[in-house]
Protein backbone atom coordinates (compact mmCIF):
# COMPACT_ATOMS: atom_id res chain seq x y z
CA UNK A 1 0.00 0.00 0.00
CA UNK A 2 1.27 3.38 -0.85
CA UNK A 3 0.25 6.50 0.88
CA UNK A 4 0.02 9.78 -0.87
CA UNK A 5 -0.06 12.85 1.27
CA UNK A 6 -2.26 15.11 -0.73
CA UNK A 7 -2.40 18.39 1.02
CA UNK A 8 -2.64 20.16 4.30
CA UNK A 9 -5.72 22.27 4.40
CA UNK A 10 -7.33 24.74 6.67
CA UNK A 11 -10.87 24.59 5.44
CA UNK A 12 -13.54 21.98 5.33
CA UNK A 13 -14.52 23.09 1.84
CA UNK A 14 -11.47 21.62 0.19
CA UNK A 15 -12.19 18.27 1.73
CA UNK A 16 -15.75 18.40 0.55
CA UNK A 17 -14.37 18.72 -2.96
CA UNK A 18 -12.26 15.67 -2.46
CA UNK A 19 -15.27 13.67 -1.42
CA UNK A 20 -17.12 15.02 -4.41
CA UNK A 21 -14.47 13.76 -6.76
CA UNK A 22 -14.29 10.35 -5.18
CA UNK A 23 -17.98 9.90 -5.44
CA UNK A 24 -18.11 11.04 -9.01
CA UNK A 25 -15.60 8.46 -10.16
CA UNK A 26 -17.51 5.53 -8.81
CA UNK A 27 -18.58 2.79 -11.10
CA UNK A 28 -17.62 2.00 -14.67
CA UNK A 29 -19.25 3.67 -17.58
CA UNK A 30 -20.66 6.47 -15.50
CA UNK A 31 -20.84 10.10 -16.36
CA UNK A 32 -17.58 11.92 -16.99
CA UNK A 33 -15.71 12.69 -13.82
CA UNK A 34 -17.48 15.95 -13.25
CA UNK A 35 -16.24 17.57 -10.11
CA UNK A 36 -18.40 20.23 -8.57
CA UNK A 37 -16.48 23.46 -8.76
CA UNK A 38 -17.84 24.49 -5.43
CA UNK A 39 -19.22 22.18 -2.83
CA UNK A 40 -20.63 23.56 0.35
CA UNK A 41 -21.07 20.17 1.93
CA UNK A 42 -19.51 19.42 5.28
CA UNK A 43 -18.24 15.92 5.91
CA UNK A 44 -19.38 16.39 9.48
CA UNK A 45 -16.01 15.65 10.95
CA UNK A 46 -14.81 19.08 11.96
CA UNK A 47 -15.74 19.18 15.62
CA UNK A 48 -13.01 17.15 17.30
CA UNK A 49 -11.48 19.09 20.18
CA UNK A 50 -7.93 17.74 19.85
CA UNK A 51 -5.79 16.14 17.19
CA UNK A 52 -7.52 13.03 15.99
CA UNK A 53 -7.78 10.95 12.88
CA UNK A 54 -10.97 10.22 10.96
CA UNK A 55 -11.26 7.70 8.19
CA UNK A 56 -13.86 8.14 5.49
CA UNK A 57 -15.68 5.14 4.09
CA UNK A 58 -13.68 3.26 1.49
CA UNK A 59 -15.16 4.08 -1.88
CA UNK A 60 -14.90 1.89 -4.94
CA UNK A 61 -13.34 3.84 -7.77
CA UNK A 62 -12.05 2.76 -11.11
CA UNK A 63 -8.59 2.80 -9.56
CA UNK A 64 -9.74 0.44 -6.79
CA UNK A 65 -10.88 1.22 -3.26
CA UNK A 66 -9.89 4.64 -2.02
CA UNK A 67 -10.22 5.84 1.52
CA UNK A 68 -9.75 9.37 2.76
CA UNK A 69 -8.07 9.99 6.08
CA UNK A 70 -8.42 13.30 7.87
CA UNK A 71 -6.24 14.54 10.70
CA UNK A 72 -8.06 17.06 12.82
CA UNK A 73 -6.52 19.50 15.24
CA UNK A 74 -8.42 22.08 17.24
CA UNK A 75 -11.58 21.39 15.30
CA UNK A 76 -9.89 22.14 11.98
CA UNK A 77 -8.62 19.79 9.35
CA UNK A 78 -4.87 19.77 9.60
CA UNK A 79 -4.10 17.19 6.99
CA UNK A 80 -5.71 14.99 4.36
CA UNK A 81 -4.22 11.67 3.37
CA UNK A 82 -5.47 9.26 0.79
CA UNK A 83 -4.13 5.75 1.21
CA UNK A 84 -4.05 4.38 -2.33
CA UNK A 85 -4.52 0.65 -2.45
CA UNK A 86 -4.51 -0.47 -6.06
CA UNK A 87 -1.01 -0.25 -7.42
CA UNK A 88 -0.52 -3.76 -8.75
CA UNK A 89 -0.65 -2.99 -12.42
CA UNK A 90 1.54 -0.70 -14.42
CA UNK A 91 -1.54 1.04 -15.71
CA UNK A 92 -2.59 1.97 -12.22
CA UNK A 93 0.89 3.20 -11.46
CA UNK A 94 0.87 5.22 -14.61
CA UNK A 95 -2.47 6.75 -13.79
CA UNK A 96 -1.42 7.48 -10.24
CA UNK A 97 1.99 8.86 -11.10
CA UNK A 98 0.81 12.46 -10.70
CA UNK A 99 -1.55 13.90 -8.16
CA UNK A 100 -4.80 15.47 -9.26
CA UNK A 101 -5.02 19.24 -8.98
CA UNK A 102 -6.95 20.22 -5.89
CA UNK A 103 -9.55 22.89 -6.36
CA UNK A 104 -9.41 25.87 -4.04
CA UNK A 105 -12.80 26.93 -2.84
CA UNK A 106 -11.99 30.32 -1.51
CA UNK A 107 -10.06 33.13 -3.06
CA UNK A 108 -6.42 32.53 -2.35
CA UNK A 109 -3.62 34.70 -3.57
CA UNK A 110 0.00 33.76 -3.89
CA UNK A 111 0.74 35.87 -0.86
CA UNK A 112 -1.44 33.77 1.39
CA UNK A 113 -1.03 30.32 -0.14
CA UNK A 114 1.99 28.17 0.50
CA UNK A 115 2.91 27.58 -3.09
CA UNK A 116 6.28 27.44 -4.80
CA UNK A 117 5.42 28.38 -8.40
CA UNK A 118 2.41 29.44 -10.42
CA UNK A 119 1.27 27.83 -13.65
CA UNK A 120 -0.83 30.02 -15.92
CA UNK A 121 -1.62 30.56 -19.57
CA UNK A 122 1.44 31.64 -21.46
CA UNK A 123 2.38 35.08 -20.40
CA UNK A 124 4.87 37.61 -21.55
CA UNK A 125 7.46 39.52 -19.62
CA UNK A 126 5.04 42.44 -19.51
CA UNK A 127 2.25 40.35 -18.10
CA UNK A 128 4.67 38.94 -15.59
CA UNK A 129 4.83 42.23 -13.77
CA UNK A 130 1.24 41.77 -12.74
CA UNK A 131 1.36 38.06 -12.22
CA UNK A 132 1.27 36.02 -9.12
CA UNK A 133 4.66 34.59 -9.97
CA UNK A 134 6.29 37.98 -9.64
CA UNK A 135 4.94 38.25 -6.12
CA UNK A 136 6.63 34.97 -5.30
CA UNK A 137 9.87 36.01 -6.88
CA UNK A 138 9.98 39.25 -4.96
CA UNK A 139 10.31 37.19 -1.83
CA UNK A 140 13.76 36.01 -2.78
CA UNK A 141 15.18 37.18 -6.06
CA UNK A 142 18.81 37.17 -6.97
CA UNK A 143 19.19 39.05 -10.22
Amino acid at each position, binding site marked *: MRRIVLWSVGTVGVVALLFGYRTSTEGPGGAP*AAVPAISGGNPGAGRAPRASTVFGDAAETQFGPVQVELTLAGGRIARVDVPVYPDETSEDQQIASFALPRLIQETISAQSAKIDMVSGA*TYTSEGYLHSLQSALDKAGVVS
Partner: protein
Amino acid sequence: MTAPIRRYVGHVMGMPVSLALRGPHAADETGAGAWREAFAALEDVDRVFSTYRPDSFVSRYGRGEIGLGECPPELADVVRLGERAKAESGGAFDLWRRHGDGSLRFDPSGVVKGWAVDRAALPLRRLADTDFCLAAGGDMVCHVADPDAPDWTIGIEHPLDPSRLIATVPVRDGAVATSGSAHRGKHIEDARTGLAPEGIASVTVVAADLVRADVDATAAFALGRDALRWLQGRPGATGLVVRSDGSAVPFAGGERRAAA
Protein backbone atom coordinates in the same frame (compact mmCIF):
# COMPACT_ATOMS: atom_id res chain seq x y z
CA MET B 1 11.49 22.47 8.80
CA THR B 2 11.60 23.09 5.09
CA ALA B 3 14.91 24.16 3.61
CA PRO B 4 14.95 27.77 2.37
CA ILE B 5 14.30 28.39 -1.31
CA ARG B 6 16.63 30.50 -3.39
CA ARG B 7 15.07 32.12 -6.45
CA TYR B 8 16.52 33.41 -9.70
CA VAL B 9 14.66 35.33 -12.42
CA GLY B 10 15.53 36.27 -15.99
CA HIS B 11 13.75 37.14 -19.22
CA VAL B 12 14.24 35.35 -22.53
CA MET B 13 12.03 34.60 -25.55
CA GLY B 14 9.72 37.35 -24.34
CA MET B 15 8.95 35.31 -21.24
CA PRO B 16 9.90 35.48 -17.60
CA VAL B 17 11.99 32.55 -16.44
CA SER B 18 11.96 31.69 -12.75
CA LEU B 19 14.07 29.15 -10.93
CA ALA B 20 13.52 27.92 -7.39
CA LEU B 21 16.38 25.94 -5.84
CA ARG B 22 16.25 24.09 -2.52
CA GLY B 23 19.02 22.06 -0.89
CA PRO B 24 22.79 22.09 -0.50
CA HIS B 25 23.53 23.95 -3.75
CA ALA B 26 20.58 26.33 -3.55
CA ALA B 27 22.66 29.32 -2.47
CA ASP B 28 26.21 28.43 -3.48
CA GLU B 29 28.27 29.16 -6.57
CA THR B 30 27.60 25.68 -8.02
CA GLY B 31 23.88 26.42 -7.98
CA ALA B 32 24.38 29.88 -9.45
CA GLY B 33 26.51 28.35 -12.21
CA ALA B 34 23.80 25.82 -13.04
CA TRP B 35 21.26 28.66 -13.29
CA ARG B 36 23.54 30.55 -15.71
CA GLU B 37 23.92 27.39 -17.79
CA ALA B 38 20.17 26.81 -17.86
CA PHE B 39 19.50 30.40 -18.86
CA ALA B 40 22.16 30.30 -21.57
CA ALA B 41 20.50 27.18 -23.01
CA LEU B 42 17.23 29.11 -23.32
CA GLU B 43 18.98 32.04 -24.99
CA ASP B 44 20.51 29.58 -27.42
CA VAL B 45 17.08 28.20 -28.33
CA ASP B 46 15.81 31.74 -28.77
CA ARG B 47 18.42 32.41 -31.43
CA VAL B 48 17.33 29.35 -33.43
CA PHE B 49 13.59 29.44 -32.92
CA SER B 50 12.36 32.96 -32.36
CA THR B 51 9.53 33.83 -34.71
CA TYR B 52 9.98 37.42 -33.60
CA ARG B 53 13.38 37.56 -35.23
CA PRO B 54 13.14 37.74 -39.03
CA ASP B 55 16.66 36.32 -39.41
CA SER B 56 16.09 33.24 -37.24
CA PHE B 57 16.15 29.79 -38.85
CA VAL B 58 12.49 29.36 -37.95
CA SER B 59 11.45 32.57 -39.70
CA ARG B 60 13.42 31.68 -42.80
CA TYR B 61 12.04 28.11 -42.81
CA GLY B 62 8.51 29.47 -42.35
CA ARG B 63 8.93 31.75 -45.36
CA GLY B 64 10.15 28.79 -47.40
CA GLU B 65 13.58 30.32 -47.92
CA ILE B 66 15.42 27.28 -46.54
CA GLY B 67 14.56 23.60 -46.16
CA LEU B 68 14.72 21.53 -42.98
CA GLY B 69 18.01 20.06 -44.16
CA GLU B 70 19.61 23.48 -43.96
CA CYS B 71 18.33 24.10 -40.45
CA PRO B 72 19.92 22.99 -37.17
CA PRO B 73 18.87 19.42 -36.24
CA GLU B 74 16.90 20.83 -33.31
CA LEU B 75 14.38 22.31 -35.72
CA ALA B 76 13.80 18.92 -37.34
CA ASP B 77 13.19 17.47 -33.85
CA VAL B 78 10.64 20.14 -33.11
CA VAL B 79 8.90 19.70 -36.46
CA ARG B 80 8.64 15.96 -35.75
CA LEU B 81 7.15 16.58 -32.30
CA GLY B 82 4.69 19.01 -33.84
CA GLU B 83 3.61 16.50 -36.48
CA ARG B 84 2.97 13.89 -33.80
CA ALA B 85 0.88 16.33 -31.78
CA LYS B 86 -1.07 17.23 -34.90
CA ALA B 87 -1.89 13.58 -35.56
CA GLU B 88 -2.83 12.87 -31.94
CA SER B 89 -5.10 15.90 -31.67
CA GLY B 90 -6.92 15.23 -34.91
CA GLY B 91 -5.37 18.34 -36.42
CA ALA B 92 -6.46 20.78 -33.72
CA PHE B 93 -2.79 21.36 -32.90
CA ASP B 94 -0.62 22.31 -35.83
CA LEU B 95 2.67 24.14 -36.13
CA TRP B 96 1.23 25.67 -39.29
CA ARG B 97 -1.56 28.03 -38.33
CA ARG B 98 -4.08 29.52 -40.69
CA HIS B 99 -4.48 33.21 -40.20
CA GLY B 100 -7.44 35.50 -40.86
CA ASP B 101 -6.23 36.29 -44.36
CA GLY B 102 -6.15 32.58 -45.20
CA SER B 103 -2.37 32.34 -45.20
CA LEU B 104 -0.53 29.58 -43.33
CA ARG B 105 2.21 30.61 -40.95
CA PHE B 106 4.78 28.44 -39.26
CA ASP B 107 4.75 28.88 -35.49
CA PRO B 108 6.58 26.17 -33.55
CA SER B 109 6.24 27.92 -30.19
CA GLY B 110 3.68 25.36 -28.98
CA VAL B 111 6.41 22.72 -29.00
CA VAL B 112 9.56 24.78 -28.58
CA LYS B 113 8.94 26.08 -25.12
CA GLY B 114 8.48 22.70 -23.48
CA TRP B 115 11.35 21.24 -25.42
CA ALA B 116 13.64 24.16 -24.49
CA VAL B 117 12.84 24.11 -20.79
CA ASP B 118 13.26 20.33 -20.57
CA ARG B 119 16.74 20.79 -22.04
CA ALA B 120 17.57 23.82 -19.93
CA ALA B 121 16.79 21.79 -16.80
CA LEU B 122 19.61 19.31 -17.49
CA PRO B 123 22.36 21.28 -15.66
CA LEU B 124 20.00 21.66 -12.70
CA ARG B 125 19.50 17.88 -12.53
CA ARG B 126 23.24 17.51 -12.01
CA LEU B 127 23.14 19.49 -8.75
CA ALA B 128 23.61 16.83 -6.06
CA ASP B 129 20.74 16.49 -3.57
CA THR B 130 19.28 19.79 -4.75
CA ASP B 131 15.63 20.25 -5.68
CA PHE B 132 14.62 22.60 -8.47
CA CYS B 133 11.58 24.04 -10.14
CA LEU B 134 12.32 25.84 -13.43
CA ALA B 135 9.42 27.88 -14.83
CA ALA B 136 9.15 29.75 -18.12
CA GLY B 137 6.09 31.80 -18.97
CA GLY B 138 3.83 29.87 -16.63
CA ASP B 139 5.03 26.35 -17.50
CA MET B 140 7.58 24.45 -15.44
CA VAL B 141 9.77 21.42 -14.84
CA CYS B 142 10.05 20.22 -11.22
CA HIS B 143 12.41 17.79 -9.55
CA VAL B 144 12.86 16.76 -5.92
CA ALA B 145 16.23 15.06 -5.38
CA ASP B 146 16.06 14.69 -1.60
CA PRO B 147 13.73 11.80 -0.66
CA ASP B 148 12.89 13.56 2.62
CA ALA B 149 12.09 16.90 1.02
CA PRO B 150 8.47 17.92 0.42
CA ASP B 151 6.85 18.06 -3.01
CA TRP B 152 6.85 21.33 -4.89
CA THR B 153 3.43 22.88 -4.56
CA ILE B 154 2.26 24.47 -7.79
CA GLY B 155 -0.57 26.98 -7.81
CA ILE B 156 -2.77 27.05 -10.90
CA GLU B 157 -3.84 30.51 -11.91
CA HIS B 158 -7.55 31.24 -12.29
CA PRO B 159 -8.02 31.89 -16.02
CA LEU B 160 -10.87 34.33 -15.44
CA ASP B 161 -8.97 36.24 -12.74
CA PRO B 162 -5.20 35.81 -12.93
CA SER B 163 -4.77 37.47 -9.55
CA ARG B 164 -6.27 34.34 -7.98
CA LEU B 165 -5.50 30.67 -7.85
CA ILE B 166 -8.09 28.07 -8.82
CA ALA B 167 -6.23 24.95 -7.70
CA THR B 168 -2.94 23.61 -6.42
CA VAL B 169 -1.09 20.46 -7.36
CA PRO B 170 1.89 18.80 -5.64
CA VAL B 171 4.65 17.74 -8.04
CA ARG B 172 7.72 15.73 -7.19
CA ASP B 173 9.22 14.90 -10.54
CA GLY B 174 7.38 16.14 -13.56
CA ALA B 175 6.18 19.10 -15.55
CA VAL B 176 3.18 21.42 -15.45
CA ALA B 177 1.86 23.40 -18.41
CA THR B 178 -1.19 25.63 -18.73
CA SER B 179 -2.75 26.86 -21.95
CA GLY B 180 -5.48 29.43 -22.10
CA SER B 181 -6.48 32.81 -23.31
CA ALA B 182 -5.25 34.81 -20.33
CA HIS B 183 -2.44 37.36 -20.53
CA ARG B 184 -1.92 37.35 -24.26
CA GLY B 185 -5.47 37.44 -25.46
CA LYS B 186 -6.83 34.55 -27.47
CA HIS B 187 -3.59 33.41 -29.02
CA ILE B 188 -4.44 29.74 -29.41
CA GLU B 189 -6.61 28.73 -32.31
CA ASP B 190 -8.08 25.49 -33.49
CA ALA B 191 -5.75 24.89 -36.41
CA ARG B 192 -8.60 23.20 -38.28
CA THR B 193 -10.75 26.32 -38.31
CA GLY B 194 -8.43 29.19 -37.42
CA LEU B 195 -10.97 30.18 -34.78
CA ALA B 196 -10.50 30.58 -31.05
CA PRO B 197 -11.83 27.53 -29.21
CA GLU B 198 -15.17 27.86 -27.47
CA GLY B 199 -16.41 26.85 -24.07
CA ILE B 200 -12.98 26.64 -22.50
CA ALA B 201 -10.90 29.04 -20.42
CA SER B 202 -7.75 27.05 -19.68
CA VAL B 203 -6.19 23.59 -19.62
CA THR B 204 -3.45 22.55 -17.19
CA VAL B 205 -1.56 19.28 -17.74
CA VAL B 206 0.85 17.55 -15.32
CA ALA B 207 3.06 14.99 -17.08
CA ALA B 208 6.53 13.48 -16.98
CA ASP B 209 8.13 16.09 -19.21
CA LEU B 210 7.26 19.56 -20.42
CA VAL B 211 7.10 18.70 -24.12
CA ARG B 212 4.28 16.30 -23.36
CA ALA B 213 2.55 18.60 -20.85
CA ASP B 214 2.80 21.68 -23.06
CA VAL B 215 1.71 19.99 -26.26
CA ASP B 216 -1.20 18.26 -24.55
CA ALA B 217 -2.35 21.46 -22.86
CA THR B 218 -2.15 23.42 -26.10
CA ALA B 219 -3.83 20.71 -28.18
CA ALA B 220 -6.59 20.19 -25.63
CA PHE B 221 -7.27 23.91 -25.38
CA ALA B 222 -7.55 24.11 -29.15
CA LEU B 223 -10.14 21.32 -29.02
CA GLY B 224 -12.44 23.52 -26.92
CA ARG B 225 -15.42 21.59 -25.60
CA ASP B 226 -13.79 18.27 -26.59
CA ALA B 227 -10.73 18.94 -24.40
CA LEU B 228 -11.72 16.86 -21.40
CA ARG B 229 -12.69 13.80 -23.40
CA TRP B 230 -9.44 13.90 -25.33
CA LEU B 231 -7.31 14.35 -22.19
CA GLN B 232 -9.03 11.44 -20.45
CA GLY B 233 -7.79 9.21 -23.25
CA ARG B 234 -4.14 10.20 -22.74
CA PRO B 235 -2.52 8.01 -20.02
CA GLY B 236 0.30 9.23 -17.82
CA ALA B 237 -0.97 12.73 -17.15
CA THR B 238 -3.32 14.51 -14.82
CA GLY B 239 -4.57 18.06 -14.85
CA LEU B 240 -7.39 20.54 -14.78
CA VAL B 241 -9.84 21.83 -17.38
CA VAL B 242 -11.48 25.18 -16.63
CA ARG B 243 -14.55 26.00 -18.68
CA SER B 244 -15.59 29.46 -19.85
CA ASP B 245 -18.10 29.71 -17.02
CA GLY B 246 -15.32 29.18 -14.46
CA SER B 247 -16.26 25.63 -13.52
CA ALA B 248 -13.23 23.37 -13.18
CA VAL B 249 -12.77 19.63 -13.67
CA PRO B 250 -9.65 17.73 -12.56
CA PHE B 251 -8.86 14.73 -14.73
CA ALA B 252 -6.56 11.70 -14.75
CA GLY B 253 -5.59 10.66 -18.25
CA GLY B 254 -6.18 7.06 -19.23
CA GLU B 255 -9.20 6.67 -16.98
CA ARG B 256 -10.80 3.37 -17.76
CA ARG B 257 -14.29 4.52 -18.43
CA ALA B 258 -16.72 3.85 -21.18
CA ALA B 259 -16.54 6.53 -23.82
CA ALA B 260 -18.71 9.33 -22.58
